[in-house]
């Protein structure tokens, strides 16, 4: 199996703050890779470093066999990396369809406007936003905006999809719908890294999981190994809320 | 050698002027720092300060420096008024809105000012004598203006760091949402900050009027200088504004020693663009 993404000893600092320390993992194509950790563990920073928003001080990132450590986000997008944001970033004054067309036009496949519109309609159908296609994105509610983020990412037909807390703020039925969607995406051959706070979802969906704590990689393995890893339990006891969720999930 | 002589003669003068530039820029930069608004009515307010000095001195016969005690509170009130009428509604809107809102205030003031004073130049003929030190002559009005500028800066500093409203202003500048959560009345603080900014503009105008002639349009030039200084000193940084003002004053004295005076604006604005590109937070400003 070919490696889609290699993260090798990545270190990122902000002034005196060590946001990521020597993070290393390999990601084979076709996996769903979970990324968990307490608040402020550096998960989103890792995403930003992988997709070129930040450049690491040390280490290397290899995507599809190419060193992309110093590359800008738009080049990575064109190579087939797409992501969603924890805090949604809709293009408010554009319609929902136009939002999705941006992903199709400028992402991995560089579609023309006409074909992008077609893809947008398909993807909107898939994320169940078809009825909103002509509305302005700013008028959607939060759950819809999350689905829009997802749709924009999917419309580029990415190889690798970075999902940043797509379940947060959704109600249980919406969560089930979204999880189903993620699994469907994987069947289309898209590799996924997901940051998630909902342990149940991560445990159920992920093939492997990486745990970050204060920017350090404290564990990596399949869900079962992670659940029983003493370092993970210790880290999570430091965050009562998450510990609570762990209990609730098991 | 000749250049050195010229420098020695011109530099002290330029630096004295720089203090006054600094006060003008401080007004602009305070408003920018607290609410992220570039106040395009800054220039006409400087002009109003000039006419304030003219009215208190020529019409009312009050010493222009004492007149500052009248002009400053009026400047403060005017600023609060402008904030309430024109700025408050667009404080969270995109930049273009606040730029155009303050620009329309600019048009209103210039329009009324032209109707009242025409656009011909006025003079506040106020002579404080001069001091000659070696090759340089220091004018009394400029010395006092520099002193007044230092007092204004000091007072602002004390106000911001030693008083409750001042601390509120800094809190709002730092993080408005957090300040509101802590119960700071942000609208009132923003209005006060805007008022302080225009007060400083009016003071600088009044000081400039004691040594340069002026018209209702003169403020525009000092507004542009304030932009340059704001960028050199770091937008939103009052001390940086003073340092930037001194730097600009010095620059205006240094450049003519080496080339024709008409090159001064080319150098000035060239430096301005360069500073923006290299250090958008100011050459002397804190790194964000």
């Amino acid at each position, binding site marked *: 199996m070919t490696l889609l993404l290699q993260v090798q000893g990545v270190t990122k600092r902000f002034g005196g703050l060590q946001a990521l320390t020597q993070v290393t993992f390999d990601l084979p194509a076709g996996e769903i890779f979970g990324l968990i950790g307490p608040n402020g563990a550096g998960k989103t920073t890792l995403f930003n470093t992988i997709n070129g928003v930040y450049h690491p001080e040390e280490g290397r990132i290899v995507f599809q066999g190419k060193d992309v450590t110093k590359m800008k986000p738009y080049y990575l997008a064109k190579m087939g990396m797409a992501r969603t944001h924890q805090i949604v970033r809709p293009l408010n004054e554009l319609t929902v369809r136009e939002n999705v067309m941006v992903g199709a036009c400028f992402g991995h496949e560089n579609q023309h406007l006409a074909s992008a519109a077609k893809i947008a309609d398909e993807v909107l159908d898939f994320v169940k936003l078809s009825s909103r296609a002509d509305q302005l994105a700013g008028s959607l509610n939060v759950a819809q905006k999350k689905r829009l983020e997802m749709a924009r990412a999917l419309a580029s037909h990415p190889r690798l999809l970075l999902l940043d807390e797509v379940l947060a703020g959704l109600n249980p039925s919406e969560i089930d719908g979204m999880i189903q969607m993620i699994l469907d995406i994987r069947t289309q051959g898209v590799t996924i890294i997901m940051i998630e706070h909902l342990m149940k979802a991560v445990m159920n969906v992920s093939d492997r999981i990486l745990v970050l704590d204060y920017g350090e990689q404290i564990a990596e393995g399949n869900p079962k190994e992670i659940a029983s890893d003493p370092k993970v339990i210790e880290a999570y006891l430091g965050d009562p809320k998450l510990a609570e969720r762990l209990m609730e999930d098991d | 050698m000749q250049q050195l002589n010229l420098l020695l*003669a011109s530099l002290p*003068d330029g630096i004295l*002027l720089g203090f006054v530039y600094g006060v003008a820029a401080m007004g602009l930069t305070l408003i920018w720092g607290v609410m992220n608004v570039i106040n395009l009515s800054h220039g006409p307010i400087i002009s109003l300060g000039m006419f304030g000095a003219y009215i208190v001195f020529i019409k009312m016969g009050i010493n222009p420096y004492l007149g500052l005690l009248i002009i400053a509170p009026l400047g403060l009130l005017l600023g609060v008024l402008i904030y309430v009428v024109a700025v408050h509604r667009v404080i969270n809107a995109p930049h273009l809105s606040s730029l155009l809102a303050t620009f329309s205030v600019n048009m209103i003031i210039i329009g009324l000012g032209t109707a009242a004073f025409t656009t*011909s130049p006025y003079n506040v003929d106020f002579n404080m004598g001069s001091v000659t030190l070696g090759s340089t002559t220091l004018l009394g009005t400029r010395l006092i203006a520099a002193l007044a500028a230092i007092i204004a800066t000091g007072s602002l500093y004390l106000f911001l760091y030693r008083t409750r409203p001042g601390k509120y202003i800094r809190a709002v500048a730092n993080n408005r949402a957090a300040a509101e959560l802590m119960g700071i009345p942000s609208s009132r603080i923003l209005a006060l900050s805007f008022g302080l900014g225009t007060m400083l503009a009016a003071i600088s105008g009044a000081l400039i009027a004691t040594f340069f002639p002026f018209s209702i349009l003169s403020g525009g030039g000092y507004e542009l200088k304030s932009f340059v200084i704001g960028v050199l000193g770091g937008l939103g940084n009052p001390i940086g504004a003073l340092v930037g003002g001194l730097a600009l004053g010095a620059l205006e004295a240094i450049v003519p020693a080496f080339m024709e*005076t*008409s090159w001064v604006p080319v150098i000035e604005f060239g430096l301005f663009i360069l500073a923006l590109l290299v250090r958008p937070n100011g050459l002397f400003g804190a790194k964000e």
Partner: protein
Amino acid sequence: MKRSLFNLFALLAVLSLALAACGGAAPAPTAAPAATTAATEAPAAPTEAPAVAVEKTVTVGFTASQTGSQEVSSKRQVNGFNLWMNQVNEAGGLTLSDGTIVKFAAQSYDDESNKERVQELYTRLITEDKADFLISPYSSGLTAAAAVIAEQNGKLMITTGAADDDTYKQGYTGVFQLYTPGSLYLTSTVDMIKTLDPAAKIAIVNESDKFSTAVVGGLKPYAVAQGFEVVLEEAYASDTADFGPIINKIKDSGATVVLGGGHYPDGSTFARQLYERKIGIQFIGILVAPPDSKFSELGDAALGVTGPSQWEGKATHTEAEAKGLGIEWFGPSGADFAAAFEAAYGDKPTYHAAGGYTAGLLLQKAILNADSVDSEAVKAALDAMNIFTFYGGIKFDTSAEAHGLQIGHSMVVIQWQKNDAGELVREVVWPADVATKSPIFPITAP
């Protein structure tokens, strides 16, 4: 569906309204004060008129800067012109040899001191108001823009308040300049300095703009030709307020005479700071600012400062002067003009006002000489014009390179001096034959 069609119609309706509004937004003429009414109410035609007196009203078009930077001077110029027109119309107009009586009507608009507007309005004056002759707006820049339109439409234009030489070197044939051209503004001052101190060292410090640069362009070679040493040439930006560094340079250059300046704001500032810095300059000659009455607001700083003036009430030109030169005299005496002006506007006339008045006077003379109001004939009369008025000589260059450039007029030099009561007054100090006082020199001990 119906609703959307309705929306579309509504939109089109709004658009067509907007279009109509644009057509209607054309400027309304600003009433020429009293002029037209005076023309119609004027009592019966002159008695010596032949039996078939044809009355003809000639429209003179111009724009005035009622707003914007040129407002003050422009107003004076227009007042001068209107005074002339009222006088002519009240006197029953001009009578040509075939008995035609010519009266004048003015048509004017506000140009906002804006070039774009000037072109729009001069086109309107020519094509819609059917102006027969044109007078320029005030200032060289606006006049340059207006001259293009006049020339393009083949209309004659007399320019006043426009000293720049350049406009007359562009191949125009129908534009005639009343003011002494910019390049000669300070040459008479140089002549005067030669009598005061032939060894003077001159610093030329001027505003970096079109007019002042033209002045300096004429001044420097002339000063050198007169044997002076020019020790400093310095141009400064138009909005300069601090002349400290420049004054230090002047001091450093060892200059004894400073010539230059530009317009009122910078010129007055420069004069004031020269005074404050006490660098021992013996003679100061500044453009534009000193002839203005406001200059006395500078107080002691104004004392001794000189400047060139197109015309001064105190040294108005006389018929005797014309006779001496053997040139034809025309028009009222300076005293009569000044009295009439003061009666009409309650203000002493400046040279802007005299220029406005003389522009009318020149047109009058040209029409009389041509004995016709036909453009071509009047143009020929202007080309041949060589007269003397209270404003001074008027004669035009007729060469192809600089057609219409004023060559008959010379400027006087004024200096601010104190009268016996200790008040600042403007005295004429050059040329010597019209001088009211001898110049103060040096103004500060060397």
